[in-house]
């Protein structure tokens, strides 16, 4: 069975720089109108962890759902 992942976003820490949006291979993330990160296609996430690795604000975490 395919693994599923949950993305935890700390909105107060996010500054909307868009690095995670650029690096996401599945286009899961977008910057919303309020200038903060929003998870628009959570079901597409493959759990590569690029967003968590590269976020300068420690604002996103990837968790594997068991």
């Amino acid at each position, binding site marked *: 069975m395919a693994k599923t992942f949950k993305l935890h976003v*700390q909105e*107060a820490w996010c500054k909307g720089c868009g*690095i995670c949006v650029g690096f996401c291979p599945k286009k899961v993330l977008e910057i919303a109108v309020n200038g903060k990160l929003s998870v628009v296609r959570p079901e597409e996430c493959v759990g590569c962890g690029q967003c968590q690795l590269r976020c300068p604000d420690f604002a996103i975490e990837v968790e594997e759902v068991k």
Partner: protein
Amino acid sequence: MTNVKDYIRQDKLPHIWCPGCGDGTIAGAMIRAIDACGLTKDNTALITGIGCSARFNNIMDFHTFQTAHGRALSYATGFKMMKPEMDVLVATGDGDCAGIGGNHLIHTARRNIDLTVVMINNQIYGMTGGQYSPMTPYPSIASTAQYSTFEYPFDVCELVKAAGGTYVARSTTYHINLTQKLIENAIRHKGFSFVEVISQCPTNFGKRNKMGSPYDMLMKQKEMSVTVEQAKDMSPEELEGKIVIGELVNRTDRKPFDEVYQDMVRKALAKKGEKL
């Protein structure tokens, strides 16, 4: 994956760095490297100077100390001499380390004191308002060079190598896993270890030089980078404007200053019939 948040003062977040600044990403890599080396919070000191890089000590939960501009290495030297059993890390910027503290860098490298220095090279004096630094590429626009800079930057890794640094490496924020690995090696290395990390400053460098978003700046780093192995077969003309990444120097033939000093103290005390 290491839980980076365990080593962060979460009440200090969101930090003051601009959106897209590389410092946060490097802080994450540093924390993962420290965790991988098994250093504890109580036995690790993080010393910083002034500038954007100085904010590392605000968010990272170790023994931290913010010092005078360019003098982080001098304070770290004193710290290491007083507490040789502790692991001392220094986070510093290009203006702080290579500009204002240039002479301290030369002599700390020459003495080969067991410090791990991470120099975040964002190619500008970011916090003070975008003045050009000795690392600003030629030609670029800066707040003190409205038309263009007219001086060439220098290669700080070559300087540390010539001064006698025993571990010298370079990486970028794009190659963040390599950065983590190099910092790990630097912490494990006995002697003066220097890691230069090329970072992006979207606010004061990128915007003035029309380099696009933070993501575009990271992609530019990817384009410009060549590994040490690739660089071996390239001519100096081909290497013009390239960033050579990887381990540049790793030598073990020199004893660290603090070890030699402790030996000397033991010898002197033995003469008097005392012990350390």
